[in-house]
C-alpha cells in the first residue's frame, strides 16, 4: 500500500476517533451512523435504469410507474435501513484479565430501546468475519473474541456494527470504540528466578517441609499442631491423637526485583517479572514485587498475584490510550 494511502487512512482513523470517542456505552445516533449503497444496491440501480429505459422507449407509462415505485422503494429503504440500527445501545462489560497473546472474549450487550425489533445485525472487527445477530428484541448478549497485543488497559480496535436489513440495497454501519475495562498482563517469559543477592533458585534449594499439599501419612500429635489437621476418625477408633502429614514445597520468600534485570529493556523486564510472579504463585511461595515507583509487600494468593500482575501491566502506562 502506498504511503499516501496510509496517510489518508491514518487521518481518517484519527478523525473517526475524535468524532466517536471511546466509551463504555454507545447509543447509535445519526452522528455515528454511516449509510451507503452496496454492490447489490448498485446492481439494483442498474436494473432499475434498464427498466426505466424500457419504459421510455416503449412509451409505456405502466412500466415507468413500476420504475418509479422501485426508485421510491430505494429511497424508503435508506430510511428503513437507517432506522433498523438507529438508537441501538451497545454496552461493553468488563472483560477478564488476560495475558498478551491470549484469546479473550469481550462481553457486549445490545439494548434495543424501540418497540420494533432490530434484525440482521453483524458485529465484528472486520466486514468478512462478522458475527450475525438475527434478531434483537430488547436485549441480547454477545461475545467477541479478541487477542490483545499490548499490555496495559485492554485497547480494543474499532468494532464494526452493520446491517443491510431489510432490502440489502444499502449497508448501514457504525464504528464502535468501546472501553472494556480490562487489564492485559505482559506475556510471561519463563526464566529461572534470580533474587536480588544474585543467587539463582535451584530445585535443590527447595526443602520439603510440612505444608498443605499432598497427603503423606500420619504422625503423633505434637503440641502446636493445628486442630484442623488432627485425624479425628483415627482418634475415634484408636483414642490416639494423630496429625495428618502433607508433602509440600516449602514456600520461600522471594523478592521479584526490577533491578536484578538491569540491562534488559523495559518490556522484557516486565515479561520476566510476570513469569516469575506466576512461577512463585504456582510454587506457593510468598513474594514481593519491587518496580520503580511501586513496591508491593510480601504476600501470596490469587489476589496478591493479580495485584502484582496488574502493577506490571500498568507500569509506566499512566492513562489508557
Amino acid at each position, binding site marked *: 500500500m502506498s504511503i499516501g494511502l496510509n496517510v489518508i487512512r491514518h487521518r481518517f482513523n484519527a478523525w473517526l476517533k*475524535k468524532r466517536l470517542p471511546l466509551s463504555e456505552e454507545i447509543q447509535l445516533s445519526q452522528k455515528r451512523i454511516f449509510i451507503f449503497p452496496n454492490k447489490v444496491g448498485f446492481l439494483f440501480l442498474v436494473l432499475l435504469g434498464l*427498466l426505466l429505459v424500457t419504459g421510455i422507449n416503449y412509451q409505456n407509462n405502466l412500466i415507468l410507474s413500476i420504475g418509479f415505485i422501485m426508485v421510491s422503494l430505494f429511497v424508503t429503504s435508506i430510511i428503513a435501513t*437507517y432506522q433498523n440500527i438507529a438508537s441501538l445501545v451497545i454496552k461493553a462489560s468488563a472483560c477478564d484479565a488476560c495475558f498478551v497473546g491470549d484469546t479473550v472474549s469481550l462481553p457486549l450487550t445490545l439494548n434495543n430501546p424501540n418497540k420494533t425489533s432490530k434484525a440482521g445485525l453483524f458485529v465484528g472487527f472486520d466486514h468478512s468475519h462478522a458475527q450475525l445477530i438475527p434478531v434483537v428484541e430488547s436485549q441480547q448478549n454477545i461475545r467477541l473474541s479478541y487477542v490483545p497485543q499490548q499490555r496495559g488497559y485492554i485497547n480494543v480496535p474499532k468494532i464494526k456494527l452493520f446491517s443491510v436489513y431489510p432490502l440489502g440495497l444499502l449497508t448501514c454501519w457504525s464504528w464502535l470504540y468501546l472501553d472494556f475495562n480490562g487489564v492485559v498482563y505482559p506475556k510471561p517469559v519463563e526464566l529461572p528466578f534470580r533474587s536480588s543477592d544474585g543467587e539463582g533458585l535451584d530445585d535443590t534449594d527447595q526443602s520439603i517441609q510440612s505444608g498443605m499439599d499432598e497427603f503423606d501419612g500420619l504422625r503423633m500429635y505434637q503440641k502446636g499442631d493445628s486442630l484442623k489437621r488432627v485425624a479425628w476418625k483415627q482418634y475415634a477408633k484408636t483414642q490416639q491423637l494423630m496429625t495428618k502429614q502433607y508433602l509440600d514445597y516449602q514456600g520461600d520468600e522471594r523478592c521479584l526485583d526490577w533491578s536484578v534485570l538491569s540491562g534488559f529493556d523495559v518490556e522484557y523486564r516486565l515479561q520476566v517479572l510476570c513469569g516469575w510472579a506466576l512461577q512463585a504463585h504456582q510454587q506457593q511461595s510468598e513474594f514481593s514485587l519491587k518496580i520503580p515507583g511501586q513496591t508491593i509487600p510480601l504476600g501470596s494468593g490469587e489476589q496478591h498475584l493479580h495485584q502484582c500482575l496488574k502493577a506490571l501491566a500498568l507500569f509506566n502506562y499512566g492513562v489508557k490510550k
Partner: protein
Amino acid sequence: MAFNASLIPQPTLVFLFFNVFAALMLHVTRLPLWLIVFSLAALSWRMFMFSGRVPKPNWYMKLALVSAGFYGVYASYGTDLTIESMVSLLIAGVMLKPLEVEKHQSSYLLIFLNYFLCALLFLFDRTPLDFLLVIVVMTLTLGSQVLVHLYDQPNRMASLKLGFGLLLKSLPLALLLFLVLPRLGPLWTLTVPTQSGVVGLSDSMSPGSIAQLGENDELAFRVKLLDNPLPMNQRYWRAFTLSEFDGETWQQGRFYQANRASDFFNDDQPSVRYEIMIEPHEKNWLFAIGGSKPLTPEITVHSDATLESRKRLYNQWQYKVESNISELLPQSNLSRSERIRYTRLPSGSNEKAQDFARQLNEQTADLPQFISALRSFISDKDFSYTLSPGTFDGDDQIDEFLFESKSGFCSYYAGSVAFLLRSIDVPARVVLGYMGGEENQLSNALSVYQYDAHAWVEVFFEGQGWLRLDPTAWVAPERVESGLQRAIPSEFQGFKSQSPWLRELRKRWQAFDYYWNDWMLSYKGNQQQAILQDLWGERTANELIGILTVAFVLLGLGLFSFLWWDQKSKPVSYEQKVYQALFTWLVTIDAANQGAVDRKSIAIPLHLKGLTMQGVCRELTKRLPHLEASLNALNKQVSAALYQPNANGLDKSKTRQLLSMIKILKKTV
C-alpha cells in the same frame, strides 16, 4: 463477503421460488408450452435438490440447459427478434437461475430479475387487472427480499408485512414522480414488433379477412367527442382505401400526400372535433371520419383523404382531429392517373357480374339511378348478412357471391359493388375501417372494438367528390343503425348479456377502463402539463424548477429534522449537569498534567470511574488544594439540595448558579 456467502435456509428459498413461479404465471398465456414445461421442470429440479436425492447441476448440465433454452426460443420464434422472443429468452434465463441459487449473494439477481419480469408484462397487457396482479407479485417478491435478510430465522408473514409496508411508504413519492417527471421521447427507435402481430385491419382485403375480426372483442380505439355529438349512422371511421383489384383481392395503391392538409376539409360544413386514443396496431394508419383536418402534428393527409402517422404505432397514441359530418368527400375532379386507377379492372374476371352491371347501366338513366337499382337488387333479392358465408373456390368469386351463394359480410358487398361500379367505368374504391362505436355516458367516450371493423365503398360523382355507399346497410340496416350485435345476434362474439345490471357493470368497468387509459396509460406531454397547471396554476418552466427545488430542500430538511429528533438524547437531570461539569474539569486537569492537548484524547482512568459527587470533589481538592473550601461548599450545596429533609433536588436557577460558580473557580486556576 462472508456474510453473504452463507446458505439461504430452505423456507426462504421455497418462498423465493414461489415468487418466480408467480411471475411465470403472469406471462403464461403467451408462452409456448415447452417453455412452461421447461420452467416447471427447472423449478422442480431445484425443489428436489432439497431432499438430496437429485444432484446439483454441474457446469456441463448448466451449459446443456442454457443451450436448450436458446434452441427452444429459436425453434419457437425463429431468428426474427420480437418482443415475445426476447421476453421468452429472459424467462428461460430467470427460470434456470434458481438452480444455482444457494447463497445470499446469488439470490439478489433472481429477485431483481423477477421485478423486471413483472414489469415487462405491460409490454403486452395493460388493463387495470394486469396492474393489480403485477403489484401483488411485486409485493410477494419484496417480501422474499426481506425474508432473505432474516437469514436463519425466516418469518414469512412478518417479511410480507414489512415488504407491503415498505411498498405503501414508497407510493407517495412514486406518485409524485409519476405526476411531475416529464416523459421523454424514445431514446432510440424501436422497431421490434410483437410476434403475433396485433389484431386489426390488414392492408389488403380478401374474402374472410374481416370475418376474423368479427369474432374479436378487443378494443381498437376510443373516441372522445370534444364538442358535438356524432350520430350512429355517421360513425364511419376511415382507415385507408383499397384501389387495386386483381380479381381476388383488393389492395392499397400508392398514394400521394395531399397538397394541403385541409384539402378535404370544408370550414362551412358542420363538423365535429374529437380525440382518438388508438391501441398500438404496428401500422401507420389512423382513423377519422370524412374530410378531416388533423389538429396534432406528425400526421400526414393522403390524396385519398386518409390520415397516416409518420411513425408506426407500437404504443398507444392520442391525436386530435376535426372532421366534417358528411357523406360526401369533396373533390372537384380526378387526375388522369387517378381516373385510370379507380376504374381499372383485371381483364376477363367475373364476366357475369360485368355483364350484369352493363345491362343495369343501359336500363338506368344516370349514376344515382344505377346505384338505386343496385340497391334494390341487393336488398330485394335473397341476400343475407353473415359472418360465416363459407368459402369460394372458383376464380370468379364475385360472380359466385352475387348470383349463387348470396350470403356474406361487409367485404363481400363492398368489393362487389365497387367492382360493379368500375365495370361501367365509374371511379370507385373500397374503404376499410371501423363502423360504429359503443357509447359510454360515464366516460363520455365511444369505444370501438375490433368486431366493428367494416368495409364500404366510395363512388366518385363528377364535380362533387366521393360519396359514401354502404351496401351492407342495404342488406342489413341494423348493422349500421345499431351495430354488429343487432345485425347478427347469433354470430356476435362480443358482450351480449341482456341482464341490465351486468350491462351497467360493464358500462362502469368501461368507464373505469377509459379513465385508466386516460390517466395511467397516456398521461404525458400536453395532458401532463394540463394536470400540473390545474394543480398549481400557470407556471413557467423556471418557476416549476424553483418550486421543485424548494420542495426537495424542504423534504431534505424534513428528513434531517426527523433523524435529529429520532436520535435526540435522553434528558439530563440537573444534578447530572453539575456532576458532569465537575467531572469534565477533573479529567481536563489530568489530561493537561499528562501533556495531552485535548481532554477527549485520553480515556478516563479506571480509578476515576464511578466516583460520587463527593468523590469528584475530593479528587479535585487533591489536585487543587487551594480551592478546598469552595469545592466543599459546592458539594454541600448539592448534597443539601438532594438529601436534606424536604429537599426536591436542584432546580433550574440553582443549577445555573452552581454552574457559573464552577466556571469562576476554573478561571482562578
